[in-house]
């Protein structure tokens, strides 16, 4: 049974490329959300194995979305990887808020799955096969 990832990003291109990459290369099942509010609702209902969350979004931004996810008992234990185009983003600060790791945009679609697995300590799919 493939692991499920939830990708929350307000940019359509990033959602599409991340979904394609994570499904084809990583063998994950991928759900996408276009906003923090929608992402929190989906996380609550679907309980994904991990969440990839954009930092800069209108309305409920990545930090506030992360806080909501960590506040709710149903989603608090789901690891969240922050996705940001800000090279100078404060990795330690985000980790201190409960993020499992940070990925920098633009990501390489061929490497994204391996990077996610590395952050989460997961074995990449192809290495997991008998």
């Amino acid at each position, binding site marked *: 049974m493939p692991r499920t990832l939830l990708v929350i990003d307000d*940019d*359509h*291109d*990033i959602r*599409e*490329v991340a979904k*394609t*990459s994570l499904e*084809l*290369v990583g063998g994950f099942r991928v759900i996408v959300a276009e906003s923090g509010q929608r992402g929190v609702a989906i996380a609550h209902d679907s309980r994904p194995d991990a969440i990839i969350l954009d930092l*800069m979004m209108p309305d409920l931004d990545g930090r506030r979305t992360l806080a909501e996810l960590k506040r709710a008992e149903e989603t608090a234990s789901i690891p969240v990887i922050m996705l940001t*185009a800000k*090279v100078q983003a404060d990795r330690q600060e985000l980790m201190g808020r409960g993020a499992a790791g940070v990925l920098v*945009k*633009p*990501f*390489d*679609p*061929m*490497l994204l799955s391996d990077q996610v697995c590395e952050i989460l300590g997961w074995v990449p799919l*192809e290495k997991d096969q008998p």
Partner: protein
Amino acid sequence: MSHPEYEAQVRAALEKVWRVSRHEALSRLATLESFLHELRSGKTDERSLSSAQSAAHRLSGTLGMFGLKEGSACAAEVESLLCHESGPNIARMGKLVGRLRILMEEGPSPTRTWEKYGQ
């Protein structure tokens, strides 16, 4: 599946996304060019600055996925310039936006994205 097999599928998917997204990306570039024109004529406001910052941010976060890594780097520098309290360096911004125009007119080269896999 080996990486080259994934690659063909991911590349095809990326090309499909780029075909749909190119117009939007060029529109974001036009926003930067328009703001640059306003800067040169001394007629900028907070709204146009905010639009330009958003356009640069989105270009920096997306172009590299399509093989335009230099484009992402240019857009990231433009975004950084637009955040300077004293205002952006107009000459530098002009060079970067001009370079972005050239790169985006050329379009992505998928091989730039897949160098690590020996393509």
